[in-house]
């Protein structure tokens, strides 16, 4: 029926047994068996995360420690700056920043989080890219850094307005963390890495935990009446409403950071005239597009009516046009918006909010409008 690999070729996460025991519906995802939903279903899981707290297992993602051979974290930061257009030297200890591995064309190899732990940099990368990212780091940074994939750790996320109150019960100082703070923390006596961040648009935390202790920590968190386990289905609708990119869909090697509307993630130090201008793969293209604009842009899209418009739907200028101007890269039903939500690429002259476009759904033309992202305002605790 499908070319997906059989269960035998799929890897399991440390929390596999817990997912199954909680009624998780396991599906193949990036080479792993992952829960797409639990008994509550995608809609309820999504809304629960926005009003209470949701617990996500994202252990399929890659966790990599970059240890400077000199012992000076600045050396690891300076080395990593050769692969990303971000100001990594500017990340002070205890803080984290969103970053992009770029290629020579200015395309995006992966998006990632980089945290400064004082003596090392802690990276979290996408599951589907982690082997390539590790090879990329080894090829370019081996002279200055030890590249240590942390394969014996699980990664979970606790997201939603009640996440802080739930986690405070395990560490009363957790509420002092601000959005994008990150560092080692002890929870239930377990040495964890905790960051105040996530992929839902909600306040929340991401917790790296040794695989052997993951079930104990997660069982404790799930025992809190505010917390429900949430599958990948709701993770996708939550991040889409929050206007966050999914690598391999909204951004990839054919999209530059400027086309992807991610210029906010390129700090002044790496821009033209900055202290460390350029010096990353694709800098010519990316810095030129920063100054002059890109030919196309990622935008938010809202369809008329209630039918979801999904990935790969074509975009046209008007009802009679057959000239495909762009396409939807992520689309579905937004439970909090209570309507269809989408993102896609359009030529830059058509990228301003309010621009009317047309898509095609089951052979009929359907009006769409360019809208501002995100669809749901974030509640990050800055």
């Amino acid at each position: 029926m499908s070319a997906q690999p059989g269960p035998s070729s799929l890897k399991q996460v440390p929390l596999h047994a817990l997912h199954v025991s909680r009624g998780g519906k396991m599906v193949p995802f990036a080479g792993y068996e992952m829960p797409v939903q639990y008994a509550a279903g995608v809609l309820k899981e999504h809304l629960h995360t926005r009003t209470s707290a949701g617990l996500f297992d994202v252990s399929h993602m890659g966790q990599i420690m970059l240890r400077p051979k000199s012992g000076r974290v600045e050396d690891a930061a300076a080395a990593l700056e050769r692969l990303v257009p971000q100001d990594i030297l500017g990340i002070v200890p205890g803080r984290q920043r969103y970053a992009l591995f770029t290629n020579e064309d200015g395309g995006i190899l992966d998006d990632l989080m980089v945290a400064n732990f004082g003596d090392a940099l802690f990276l979290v990368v996408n599951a589907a890219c982690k082997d390539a990212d590790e090879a990329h780091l080894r090829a370019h940074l081996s002279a200055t850094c030890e590249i240590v994939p942390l394969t014996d750790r699980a990664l979970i996320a606790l997201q939603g307005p009640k996440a802080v109150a739930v986690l405070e019960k395990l560490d009363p100082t957790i509420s002092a963390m601000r959005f994008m703070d990150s560092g080692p923390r002890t929870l239930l006596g377990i040495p964890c890495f905790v960051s105040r961040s996530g992929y839902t648009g909600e306040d929340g935390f991401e917790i790296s935990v040794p695989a052997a202790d993951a079930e104990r920590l997660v069982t404790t968190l799930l025992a809190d009446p505010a917390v429900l386990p949430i599958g990948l289905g709701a993770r996708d609708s939550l991040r889409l409403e929050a206007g966050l990119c999914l690598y391999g869909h909204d951004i990839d090697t054919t999209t530059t950071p400027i086309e992807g509307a991610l210029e906010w993630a390129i700090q002044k130090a790496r821009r033209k005239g900055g202290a460390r201008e350029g010096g990353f793969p694709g800098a010519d293209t990316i810095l030129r597009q920063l100054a002059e604009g890109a030919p196309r842009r990622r935008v938010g899209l809202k369809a008329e009516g209630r039918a979801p418009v999904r990935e790969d739907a074509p975009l046209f200028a008007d009802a009679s046009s057959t000239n495909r101007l762009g396409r939807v890269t992520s689309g579905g039903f937004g439970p909090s918006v209570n309507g269809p939500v989408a993102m896609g690429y359009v030529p830059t002259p058509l990228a301003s909010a309010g621009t009317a476009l047309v898509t095609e759904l089951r052979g009929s033309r359907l009006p769409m409008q360019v809208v501002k992202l995100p669809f749901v305002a974030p509640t990050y605790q800055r």
Partner: protein
Amino acid sequence: MTTLFTSDHEWLQIEGDTATIGITDFAQNQLGDVVFVELPKAGRSLKKGETAATVESVKAASDVYAPVSGEVVEANEALAADPSLINSDPQGKAWFFKLKLADKGELEGLMDEAAYKAQTE
């Protein structure tokens, strides 16, 4: 009045020469939360196997095929207004449309409830 089932997880309630058609509890469970449904208009003539309706869940779009041929006499407007009825009452309030049967002989290939249950277990 008899209720018949298809291997595509549809049910048909037969009254005289009219069939009321919907999808089964098994089908709604597979689909997940339904957020949109597109129903055929009254008067439309459907051939057996033709796409009659589309169901959009949070996960994906699924086509519903006409299990038998006939003319649509009524579509369920209440379902179009509240597609979540498919999840809450698939074999009751969430009927999709009523069909005036073109050929009652087409019913012979369909399953009774016991045969359908055996298939989904």
